[in-house]
Structures are given as C-alpha cells and as structure tokens.
C-alpha cells in the first residue's frame, strides 16, 4: 500500500478551515459540560438567560435575590439563570491495518474527517479529545480546547500510523473508562472487526454519549475490482481466503456488505446513535459540509 500523504497541511487546507469556521457541533442531547462554555446546560448557573425562581436558603448568593418580589411579597426568592457549558467531542479513530487500504486511502480520509470535526470543536470552545485505537491499544490526545490547540490536534492526527488489529471492543472499553464525562462521540472506522462491532459499541452507545458512527470504506471494498483465482490475505491478522472470483461470488459479497452495513445501522439506531456510511471516493469536504450537517452532527 502506498504511503499516504499525511502531512498536517494536507489534512485541512486553510480555505477549508475558513469554511469550517461557520459550523458548530450539534448534539441532540443537552449534555453536561465541565467548563464554562457557549452551550446551554441543564444546570442553573450564571448567564443572562432567566430560568426559574426558588426560595432563598441560607448561604445563597445575595446578588441573585429578586428584590422586587421581596418588596411585593415580603419573601425572599432567588432568581435562577441557565448555565452555559462547553461540549465534549470525543473522536474515536480506527487506526488498525485494515484502514491502511484503498485508494483514496482510508486512514487518511478518517484523519481528515477527524481533523475537520476536531477543528470545528476547537474553534467553538468545545473540549476535543481524540483517541486512536489499534491493536487493542488506545492512544489519546488528551482534552484540547480553544483554537490555539488546532495545530496540536492536527499534529496528533498526522502522527498516527495504521498498525495491528482493530479490536474495537477493547478500544471502546478503554475509551469509556477513560472518558466518564458526557459528550458527542464520533467513531470513525470501517467496523470490520472479526470480534463483532457490537461488543465495542455497547460501551459507547447510549448513556453518556451522543454517538455518531461514520463507517468509512474504500471503493475497492465496496466494489472489489478482483478477478481470477486469488488468495486473499487479511491485512490485520494475515488470515487467508482462497477464492475464484465469479459473478455469483461478487454478487454475494456485495449482498453481504450491504447486509452488514444495514445491521450496523439498525444496531446504532436502536441505541440512539446515528449511522453514517461513506466511501473514500466521496470528496472529504462534501462529507463534512453536507452529509454531516444533514445527519445533525454539525450545524
């Protein structure tokens, strides 16, 4: 497989970043943040937007007592305001050997999507955390916030190299343990896991995360340009399958792929997640600017 161009400046161009500045992350859930941010929180806190009243109790900040009410009713009420918090964006990136495949290159495409989402998150003062998983291990970028961390994020992504087996289950388990907070979780992977994607996604589906799964496949996987008698070798585990490419076999392969994607979609939908399928043949900016907006991840 040709070494893809993963230079930082190739992940996101400045023109594209300017267009991304217009976007923000959306979440169907109102999730609790950790820091003050630009997103409305369920919590009551300090903001300009009135939320409710409650009885004064000893110890409350006298600055929030509604003195007009006290004048009329002679009772102390406290004014409550909506809290504005930040949004946590967790990008779970598949960097197994199976992503080191395809033309356009699958891993590079995943990195570009992750960079775009991370960029949008950073410029909107959200906490962005990128976790790359491969071979059962998870490499975490740590939480990043503010536009100043864009270069750091892109460097992190650029340094990722596909290796080993995916092991989605182990990766998701570790991710879930490490990130107990709530947030938007975007999983970028081909989901070709012989252990089954269900074992992994159950850690991130539902509960704390607003889950988006972007299944990224190369055109060579969607419509294999194979012919003849072949010995197919799995990039991850070196497993082999001897096949004679025939029309019925190709037809069966495509039917199985379709069924596999549908099953993944159904699995996610049932658990409140969102499924998005993309081919690396789809231009990256189209995916980000159109598809992700249509699916409600960006707005």
């Amino acid at each position: 497989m040709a070494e893809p161009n993963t230079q930082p400046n190739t992940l996101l161009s400045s023109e594209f970043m300017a267009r991304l500045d217009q976007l923000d992350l959306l979440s169907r859930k109102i999730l609790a943040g950790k820091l003050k941010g630009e997103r409305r929180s369920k919590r009551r806190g300090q903001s300009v937007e009135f939320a409710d009243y409650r009885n004064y109790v000893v110890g409350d900040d006298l600055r929030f007592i509604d003195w007009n009410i006290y004048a009329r009713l002679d009772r102390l009420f406290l004014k409550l305001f909506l809290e504005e918090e930040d949004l946590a964006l967790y990008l779970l990136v598949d960097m197994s050997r199976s992503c080191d495949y395809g033309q356009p290159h699958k891993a590079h495409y995943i990195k570009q999507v992750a960079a775009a989402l991370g960029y949008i998150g950073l410029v909107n003062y959200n906490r962005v955390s990128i976790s790359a998983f491969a071979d059962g291990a998870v490499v975490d970028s740590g939480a990043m916030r503010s536009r100043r961390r864009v270069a750091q994020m892109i460097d992190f992504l650029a340094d990722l190299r596909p290796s080993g087996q995916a092991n989605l289950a182990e990766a998701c388990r570790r991710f879930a343990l490490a990130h107990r907070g709530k947030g938007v979780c975007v999983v970028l992977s081909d989901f070709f896991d012989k252990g089954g994607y269900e074992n992994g996604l159950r850690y991130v589906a539902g509960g704390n995360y607003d889950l988006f799964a972007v299944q990224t496949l190369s055109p060579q996987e969607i419509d294999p340009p194979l012919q003849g008698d072949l010995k197919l070798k799995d990039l991850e585990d070196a497993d082999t399958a001897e096949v004679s490419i025939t029309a019925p076999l190709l037809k069966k392969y495509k039917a199985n792929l379709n069924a596999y994607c549908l099953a993944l979609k159904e699995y996610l939908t049932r658990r409140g997640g969102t499924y998005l399928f993309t081919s690396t043949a789809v231009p990256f900016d189209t995916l980000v600017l159109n598809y992700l907006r249509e699916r409600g991840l960006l707005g």
Partner: protein
Amino acid sequence: MNWLPSFLNPWTAALTAAVAVPALLALYFLKLRRQEMEVSSTLLWKKAIQDLQVNAPFQRLRRNLLLLLQLLLLLLLLAALARPVLHGNHSAGRLNVILMDRSASMNTRDIEGLTRLDEARKLARQLVDAMEAGASAMVIAFDDTPQTLQAYTSDKLRLKRAIDSIEGTDRLTRLADALRVAESQSTFFYPEEKRPSQEPPRIHLFSDGRIGDAADLSLRRAQMLYSPIGSSAAPNLAVAALSARRSYERPTEVQVFARFANYGPAPVEDVGVLLSVDGQGQRVDQKMLLLPERWSAQQRQDWEKQSGRTARSAVEFKLELVAGAVLKVEHMSKGADALAADDAAQIVVPPPRSLSVLLVSSGNYYLQRALESMQLKNPQTLSPSAFEQQFADPARLAGRYDVIIFDRHQPKALPGAGNFVYFGCLPPHLNIKAATGPDGQRLLARDVGVLDYQREHPLVRHLNLQRLYIGQMLRLELPTPANATSATDTQVVVEGTAGPLVVLHREARAVHLVVSFDLLQSNWPLRQSFPAFMHNAMVYLALGADMELRQSFPPGATPVIPRSSLQQAGDPRELRLAGPVQHTVAVPAGGDVALPALSQVGLYQTQPPVPQFEKIAINLLDENESNILPMATPPGQAAQAASGGGASGKIRQELWWWVLACLAVPLCLMEWWIYARRVHL
C-alpha cells in the same frame, strides 16, 4: 443384437487406467497456484464463500465435481481404448469376403426412404469397422455378373471406399459366379497352409435374398453369413410381361399385351395403366385389381369370394401404327411402389413391312406352302432356268428381294450383298464348300440324325429338332482362318451326326443360310418345326424380323448387332449409344458387334441408327427381381453351409465412436461450462 458390449482390448485399457487414473488424481490434488492479494478484511469474503457453499445443492459432490467429471471423461476414453463392441448377427473373421448385391431389387426404397443397397452399404461398413487388426477382407459386388471391387486387404479405408463406390444396377441376380470368384480368390491369396488362422473364409452376403440361381449355389471351403435386407411390407407393382406384335393380315395393327403383378403385402385396386406411344401418354381406362403374388391360390379365392370382385392383372389393346414407334406401358399406382425399375416396360415397334421373297426351285410343294402360309408381300417362285435367264447379271438382283431361297439349285453368280437360303446346294465362290472326294465328286452322307443344335439361336429357338431324320446330305467343308480368303463368320446352327446340317455363313455383305440336305430327302417338311424354322429364317435374315416386333432385352444384356445391319447403316467406325447410360462402341472391321452390357432399364438409341437396332428397349420383366419380399433364409445350399459350419454368426459393431461422440464430448463441454461458471471453488 446383444446390447451388452464386450471389449476387444481390455488389457490395454486396464494398463492405461492403472497409470492415468492415479495421475489424474495426483494432478487434481496439486494446489492451484493462486495470486496473493491483500484486502482490508477477509470477513465478508469468508462469509460469502460460506453462503455460496451452503446454498449450493449437492455441495459435497460439487466440491469434487470437476474431479468426478474428469474421472468420468477418463473412464470413457479408457472404455473407448478398450474397443467396446456390440455383437450382432455376424462377426468378422480373419478372412472375410463382402458380397454386395447390387441387382435391381436392391434399389427398392423401403428402409426409411433409403434403398436396400444403402442399408447393405451401412451394414458392410459396420462389418469393416468390426474387423480385428490384421483381418483381411475383399469386396465383391454382384448382379448377374460379379465384379471384384477390392482384392484382399486389411486397409479399412480402401474397403469402405470400395463399399461406397457400389452403385445399383437394374440387372438380375446370379450369385453362383460371385461365390466362385470369392472362393477362388480366397484360395489363391490365402492357400490353406498360409492362412493366418484355421477358420475358413467368411463370406458375408448383404442381399435381400432374391437370388435367381439360388438352386445352383454351393460352397466348399467357405462359410456364408447372410444378412437379409429389406422389409417384407414394402409394396411393389411391376410389369410382369409385355409383348406386342403386328398382325400378318393387317400389318398396321399392333396388338399389345401386358401383365402386371403385385408383389406387395396387400391387394391393390383400381390400378390404371398408361400407354405411351413415342412418349405421348394416353391413359388406358382399364382398372386392374392386383392381388398379392405371395398369396396362395386358396387365399386369392377366399378374398375374391369375400369381396365379390375378380382379380384382373392383364391388359390387352390394339393400336393402329402406320409408322414405327416405341410403346411404353406403365402402371399409375406410383404410391404403392417401392421399386421404380419395373414400373414400366417398353417395346420397339418398327414400321410395318412385308418380306419380298424369291424361291428358285424346280418344284417343292413344302417350301411353297411354307412361304404362302407366311402371307408375305410378294412371294415369287422362279424355276432355275428362268432365274439364270432373268438374272444373268447379278447386279439386277441387288436390293430387289429381301431373301432368295435356292432349292437344289446352285446359282452361277450372286450379288455381293443380300440374304440367301440354300436347300441341298451350296453357293458358288464362297469359303464354305462342299467336301469332295479324291475323284472330285461331292461327298454325301446318309441316314443322318441331329446331334445337337443351338437352342438359343434365333433360327431354331423353341424348336424341337431331335426327331429330324435326313436320308442324304452334303458334307460341308467349313472355312477356317487358314483357308479363308476374306473376313467370314461361320456358325453351325444344327449339327448332324455326319456333319453340319444348318450353317449360317456371312461373307462380304451377304448372309448365307445353308441347309445341307434336300428337304425332300428328309422328314422335316412333315414336322412342325419346319414352318417355324422358315418363319424364323425369314425373320432373322431380313428385316422380316419385323413380322414379330423386336424383342426387348433384359438389363445387363449385350445385344449383338449383325454385320448385315451394320452394312446397311453404312459400316460406321463407331457407334454411340444414347439412353439412361451413354456408351461409345468402336466397330471392328469385320464380324458382328456386341454392345456393352446395358445395365439400366430404359430406351437406348444407336447413333448412327443401325437398322433393327435403332432403338433398343431394356426391360426388367423379371419375377425374381420384382418380387421384393426379402428372403429370411440364406439362399440355396449356402444355407446348409452356414448352418452346417456351426458358426455362431456374429457381427461386431464397435462402439467407440459413439462413446466419444455421444458421451465424452458433452461431458467435456459440461466440464468447461462448470469451470467457466466457477461454480466450484
């Protein structure tokens, strides 16, 4: 036919199988060298493979389907190598004679639109295929004469070529000569001490069994295996007889008589007859009812009684023919007919003409009465003195009379051409002479009887001369090549106990019929044979042949044109025969000309036209050939030879072409299809 095949080369096939089957298995189990290709995951591929395998019917079989097909193909090839054969009624021996009947009856088209000869060719080819390596065969085709088409050879290609070259004729069937040729050739090429095996040569007869000389057959050192060919249900209507003659009283009236026969299995009603005069057909409204000839008289009677109808198989009609013509009679029921050669018969009717005869006699009551009875146009009698006086110059005689009869008078001079009959005298200045003694006196013989005569000669045909008695006769000195002064042709027609009695002598352009005794010195005038002889003589010598209409010839006949007719035609150097088959005949300087065998029925014409032979009709008119009911048993004594030899009589038909063509090739195609479709993984 025994449908269980046996094998000619089982050990060869077994040895090959011992090598080829393990080799195929070893080759099959060698792994296919596949091109290695990296994919992101084999997850879906393996699932697709499993799905296909699970869904495929007979998956266990399918897994090795190609191997099974290859094994099956190999087994078929091995079976072909083992040379499987089917055993039929005959088997090819080491020495085989293939006798192919090509006579008229073999042209019967009763085997699915094919002729019996086609079927015979097919069976003979099968026999050749079934011959073992090293076995020899020869091919003889026969009708009334045998023809060796291929001498003994082991070359199957040449044998088949010879078999395929056989073409049917309309001739009769005689097998005896063919058997003699077969036996003599076998003995010549393979004397008993040199034969590859002790078994006698096998004569394979492919025929419908309608053999004309079946009673004369005998086999001494060979064994005959007979393959009857033909269907007993084939219908055939035939012209069984045809004759026509002009009336003596009214020479322009021709009486035609035809008889038809039904050789099919069922009665045929309302058979119309078409009579053609020079190709102009006119239907004769005579509806005939023909009962099968194979029926017994009792069956015929029963049928007639039951149906209330009477069988009628003959037609007779009269025609006014002032000129010569060719009469053709044919039946109109072509649908009920499998053999075409006997559907029609033709006869040539020359223009009416009466003889002009001069009798030179000093008085012979019997001769005069005989001539009068013939109602000739102009019978004239002259005394010897009157004759000599009137025709002192022979040139005056030329062409004036058709026949001149000299009764006990030797003329002084004769013209160079003409027909002459002598009774008790001899013509002068000819190569045939009266024998003389030392004293110059003519030698006479007394009390002479008939020793022999040529019963088939037109002059004495159908006559009984055995009781002829001659009191005194001239001894004749016949010309020999040594003493002949010119080209002559002398034929003794009747041989007496003391020398020739009747001699036909041709010299120059004249024909002389010499009767070496005086009629009055014999009892001949009182016998029935005398007027008949006179009639025959008139018919034969001159165109008087036209008193009877010209005979037709059987197929294969070689009509002989007498020199006198050729002379009348201007002595051509070459004769062309136009008809169903074209011939060109070179005419020799002297003597009669025998035409080549005319094998096909029909009408032949000589060019230039030769009097009496301008047109020659060849008709089948043979009951044995027209009767197309095939004989189930071998003909004649050959049957005893076949059964007496105790031969199992098997014909072997090799199957390997069928094995390859019918099984192996489709199998190969199926294997290709399966491989191309990649159903198997």
